[in-house]
């Protein structure tokens, strides 16, 4: 084998298409990494802005509170007073729930350009703060990003096709195959050397370019582990396409024929299967109507507002601790009614929102199962999980936001209703979002899902190599 590889190197050196494909792939990879890193830097700076704003306002609340304690200002509206719960919540509290970036986020932009990763959670109904989009050109959302995962999913297989489609058929058409077959060597091993050398160089260069690009373009060195895991999957995906090219080469008689078969397979896996599956799933599990959702929410809010006092009575029955205690007058009635109405709106909205989540969940589950049918979807899914830009993680984060919202309401309700004084700057609830432990099994399953078909293809090709 070493001799065959050494001899094959003489061909590879002269193979202009091979070097051109490798060069273009590496250039695309570097551009993809640069794009991904630019996007994560943008996101990181947004998160920093949000956190700075939150910290500044909290510090201002403390200093202003101390200042106002020293010298109480005249005519200060409670809405602006940090020592008043209303004032603190309205004028000072700028608390953002942030979806933290995974270390390798730059590998796959995924859903992170579409779904917000920043919500300012208040005690008001969730729909008042959940519709918070990042500014983005819709055309770019539609086209998708040119990130490293795009390069791996779409362009790497095409580079493999350009390189490998003619490795056998060209020798056959050129007539050199007869002379080769007259030599005392196994043609299978000779073809294996052709594939291994080219595959080794292409994938090796891809791996080195990924590491070098990651470090050179400012990716976090601590994420190299995740990058390497991603790379392992990408290389397995590349191996699948080389195996497929081998299979096609051993069954096809002309280079054009194998190029067409490979291109058709690519088109199926990369374009038609995902798009068709998406179409089928949206037909099978259509999301509820957003317009109807808005309509019902609005109707419900109106109704709740009309029944304000009645709801309040009910609310206080459920929350006796919030009932007016000793405090004369109705100065907190506004808030009481508001909490009661908010609670009612939340009660109405919860099943509506759950209907969206449920349909989405059904689609997600179907994809989780059906992705094993396509190596492209296997790699896509794992890449997004590694980059932390997948839908499931976002859903977990939204669930954590729901929990934070509940705790926020519980935190502010008694304080707003029973005491105006506020000093609990350190006790404001914070987001409790925990990452699940990394799924080694899922990674290994994905790796197997890529390597098993690759090996099967090689076995099926068997020794069908010849004139």
């Amino acid at each position, binding site marked *: 084998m070493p001799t065959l590889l050494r001899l094959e190197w003489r061909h590879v050196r002269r193979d202009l298409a091979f070097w051109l494909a490798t060069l273009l792939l590496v250039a695309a990879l570097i*551009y993809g990494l640069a794009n991904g890193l*630019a996007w994560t830097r*943008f996101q990181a*700076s947004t998160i920093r*802005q*949000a956190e700075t*704003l939150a910290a500044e306002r909290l510090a201002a609340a403390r200093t202003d509170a101390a200042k106002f304690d020293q010298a109480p200002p005249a005519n200060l509206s409670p809405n602006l007073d940090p020592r008043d719960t209303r004032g603190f919540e309205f004028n000072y509290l700028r608390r953002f729930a942030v979806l933290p970036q995974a270390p390798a986020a730059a590998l796959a932009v*995924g*859903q992170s350009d*579409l779904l*917000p990763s*920043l919500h300012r959670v208040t005690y008001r109904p969730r729909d008042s703060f959940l*519709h918070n*989009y990042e*500014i983005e*050109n819709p*055309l770019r959302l*539609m*086209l*998708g*990003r*040119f990130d490293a995962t*795009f390069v791996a999913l*779409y*362009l790497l297989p*095409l580079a493999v096709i*350009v390189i490998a489609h*003619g490795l056998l058929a060209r020798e056959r058409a050129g007539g050199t195959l007869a002379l080769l077959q007259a030599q005392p060597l196994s043609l299978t091993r000779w073809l294996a050397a052709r594939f291994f050398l080219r595959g080794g160089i292409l994938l090796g260069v891809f791996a080195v370019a990924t590491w070098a690009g990651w470090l050179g373009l400012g990716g976090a060195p601590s994420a190299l582990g995740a990058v390497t895991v991603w790379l392992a999957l990408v290389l397995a995906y590349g191996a699948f396409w080389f195996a497929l090219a081998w299979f096609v080469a051993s069954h096809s008689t002309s*280079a*054009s024929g194998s*190029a*067409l078969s490979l*291109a058709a397979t690519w088109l199926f896996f990369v*374009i*038609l299967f*995902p*798009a068709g599956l*998406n*179409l089928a*799933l*949206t*037909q099978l599990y259509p*999301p509820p*109507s*957003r*317009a*109807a*959702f*808005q*309509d019902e929410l*609005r*109707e419900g809010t109106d109704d709740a507002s009309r029944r304000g006092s009645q709801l309040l009575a009910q609310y206080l029955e459920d929350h006796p601790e919030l009932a007016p205690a000793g405090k004369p007058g109705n100065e907190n009635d506004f808030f009481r009614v508001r909490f009661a109405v908010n609670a009612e709106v939340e009660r109405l909205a919860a099943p509506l929102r759950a209907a*969206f989540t449920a349909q*989405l969940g059904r*689609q997600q589950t179907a*994809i989780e199962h059906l992705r094993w049918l396509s190596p492209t979807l296997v790699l*896509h*899914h794992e890449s*997004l999980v590694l980059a932390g830009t997948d*839908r499931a993680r976002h859903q977990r984060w939204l669930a954590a936001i729901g929990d934070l919202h509940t705790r926020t309401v519980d935190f502010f309700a008694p304080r707003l209703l029973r005491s105006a004084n506020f000093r609990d700057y350190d006790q404001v609830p914070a987001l409790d979002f925990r990452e699940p432990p990394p799924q080694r099994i899922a990674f290994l399953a994905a790796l197997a899902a890529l390597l098993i078909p690759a090996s099967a293809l090689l076995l099926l090709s068997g020794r069908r190599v010849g004139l």
Partner: protein
Amino acid sequence: MIATIVRHTFAELVRDGRFRLTAALLVVLALVAGLAGWQQVRALHAEAAAAGTGERGRWLGQGGKNPHAAAHYGTYAFKAPRPLAVVDPGVQAYLGSAVFLEAHRQNEPLHRPAQDGTALQRFGDLSPALVGQALLPLLVILLGYAAFAGERERGTLRQLLALGVQPLHLLVGKALGCIAALTLVLVPLAALGVAAAALLAPPGQQGDELLRALAWVAVHTIYLGAFLFLTLAVSALARSARTALVVLLGFWLIGVVALPRALSDLGRSLHPTPSSLAFRNELDAALGDPHGRETLEAQRVAILKQYGVSRTQDLPINWSGIALQFGEERANQIFDRFFQGLWATLAAQDSIFQLGAIVSPAPAIQLLSQALAGNDTAQHLNFLTQAEQHRREMQRTLNGALRDSKGSNAAFDWNRIPPFGFSPPPITSALAPLLPSLAFLIAWFAATAVAATVAVRRLRA
């Protein structure tokens, strides 16, 4: 002579099992996607109409509410889908479908359909537009890559040229033969578009939508024609059919798959948009800036003088109506400055994308197709502009009513605020910003036709 070549080419293609299978598959794909889109357009239309009716009912049932309270109560404007979303949904899924119109604020639209989808949708929507713009060019390549290179390999080109067949006649004949075969695929797509325009368009808009559908078919025909001539030119120049195929597939990959994404990312790095957080903070800061309020004070003094009183309470009109309208108009200027600036950035990004049509015709056809279907960014912004005009008009009326409400207990007639209706811009203004795209597309067609002519002139067996 040409007729013979056309007949021969057409018969050869139609007899080819690969062509028949691929063509049938593409037609089925386009029709399935189109019919799913058809159903969705109808459903969204009905939902938007129902929600609009609900909003209107709530608005009219406000009773004796204070006009400014009603302004805060506000109303939602729902965006109905455009009929040609059946052939090209464009960016529709990535734009909000409802805007809340209320006092003091120009809101951003809510409810992007894509937010309820999975990551799969980011592989691209299966639509007749995808078939026409990405898959049919592949079929064209499949039809034509061997037109000359294959004949040369088989040795039949030698015989043809020895017979005295003129290379140019050969080109025209083969091109027409391929076009005839392609027509079999294009006709169902065109029929789908025309039917959508005729049957789904709201009354009064059928004419414009029909014109859009025909233009949609026309630009796609030009686009595919450019691909056909490119394919024939490469086939005539290439040494072998394999080389022709690999070169053409490479062009398709770079020009149709990779370039659009690369361009849109380039657009963002050249014309960055601010983060939503920063944008809103700056907007809030501008709105909260007390600078400019002195004009209001001057106005107050003037009005007090006009009515000969010294306190606003003593005025025969309700001062707060005037003050609120003043605030609206001041805020409107700020909104215009911020949103126009943001939209200009988006337009600048899109013009970088449009320039990419120099490298490949794909960006041009994508922009044109979306615009003709009414699902491009510009027409969405037009919807937002119309909704915002409606909001401003609504505030003016309500604040006027508030101003004149002093001493009268009559309830506001809620019918004075008309329901919001979006009137889509006509095809001419939808296409106006895309004249460069149209020019690029036609230039591609002309250049590839010339290239093919030159290539066959030099044809050597």
